[in-house]
């Protein structure tokens, strides 16, 4: 059983810790770094609730070891809203379209959408909806989430619809 000293940037802040090799990134983010917005659902890669952004890409944090994120830039749902509380566009649209109900799966949906819409990316509605097939929600019936994805998608002219 090996222990490793790791350092990573989480939501713009440096975090370090000593972890057993078997600790998942999701558990490190929750238990060591305190980012409990990382929701751990199935712990075997099916539900998508634990999705975070690692070096710009949405990944399941239960399917990665914490030690593998050594040196990485990690963003959790806590890292999206501005410091004055202004919501990230993805959060705002999900709020307006009733894209959440109990909220357990929501951080996963938010991070998947945020990874695909941040920066210069211009995803189509089809791309967003298809990426959301990797997230499971048991209460909204998905229609609000689909409406939010539609609003976040770019139309052919490259404008947000």
């Amino acid at each position, binding site marked *: 059983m090996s222990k490793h000293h790791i350092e990573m940037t989480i939501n713009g802040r440096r975090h370090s810790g000593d972890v057993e*090799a078997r600790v998942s990134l999701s558990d490190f983010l929750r238990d060591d770094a305190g980012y409990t917005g990382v929701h751990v659902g199935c712990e075997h890669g099916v539900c998508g609730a634990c999705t975070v952004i690692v070096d710009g890409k949405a990944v399941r944090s239960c399917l990665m070891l914490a030690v593998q994120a050594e040196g990485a830039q990690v963003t959790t749902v806590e890292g999206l809203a501005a410091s004055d509380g202004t919501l990230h566009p993805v959060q705002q649209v999900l709020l307006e379209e009733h894209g959440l109900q109990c909220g357990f799966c929501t951080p996963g949906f938010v991070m998947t959408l945020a990874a695909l819409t941040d920066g210069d990316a211009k995803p189509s509605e089809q791309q967003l909806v298809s990426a959301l097939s990797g997230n499971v929600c048991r209460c909204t019936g998905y229609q609000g989430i689909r409406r939010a994805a539609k609003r976040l998608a770019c139309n052919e002219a490259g404008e947000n619809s």
Partner: protein
Amino acid sequence: MKPAPFDYVAPTTIEEACAVIAEAGGGATVMAGGQTLMPLLNLRMSQPFIIVDINKIAELKGVSRGAGVTRIGPMLRQCDAITSEALARDLPVLVQAVRHIGHHQTRNRGTVGGSIALGEPAAELPATAVALNATIEVRSTAGTRKIPASEFYLGPYMNTLQPDELITGITFPDWPKGHIPLFRELAQRPGDFALVGIVGALVVEAGKITRAGIAWFGMGPTPIKAKTAEQMLVGQSLDTLDIQAVAESAIADTAPFDDQHASAEYRRTVGKRIFASALREALKTGEVA
């Protein structure tokens, strides 16, 4: 639900990785993208003594050209395979197959070599490797070995890889410009394993099929080369080709079983239909080649 304790090493060279794997004497498990291994660890279905993480080995990444072949590094991530210009040009059907693996989030970590090494019988990439006559290069401290993909798979999740061997490359022979990709799968939801699938490529010259490489997935304990169909197709003139007859005969190569998702009979019925419809669709676009 946490993994049992293990040691972890992340070598940066192939030699170092092979040395660690050899030293562990069968107790090591190699981690590529981890999108299947991590669930197995979390569920404690797999309890290795040591995890050898090959994510830091630069030599195992990327796509390169060799003499008459495209060589894929096993650590090429599935998301990078989808956006690879070289693969879109030289192996379009592989890109099409990768799009059907898992979900966006798992393709961001999952690798081409990981999927080929695992050998899930209903997975897209092992069948693609078998269909296109790929060769799997493996290395151990004892040396290197090249295994034809058609001889690599022994059963579900079982292959001829020895405990001390590491996959270092997958080479796909060239297909001429203008060849026709063939891909069709039926799954209950996008991202699920296929109930039935076929993958491959065809070359049509002057109205005749001159080359065919096709394999089934989800139709037996391993990916299955569609030998009967290949033999019937090569040399056939498109004018006289009886697609339905080829589909009826092709199914004889498969060995599907009953499981909770579908019966063997259902798989055979659907297999014939998707084989025929995929072939019809492919040849319609390929007549001008």
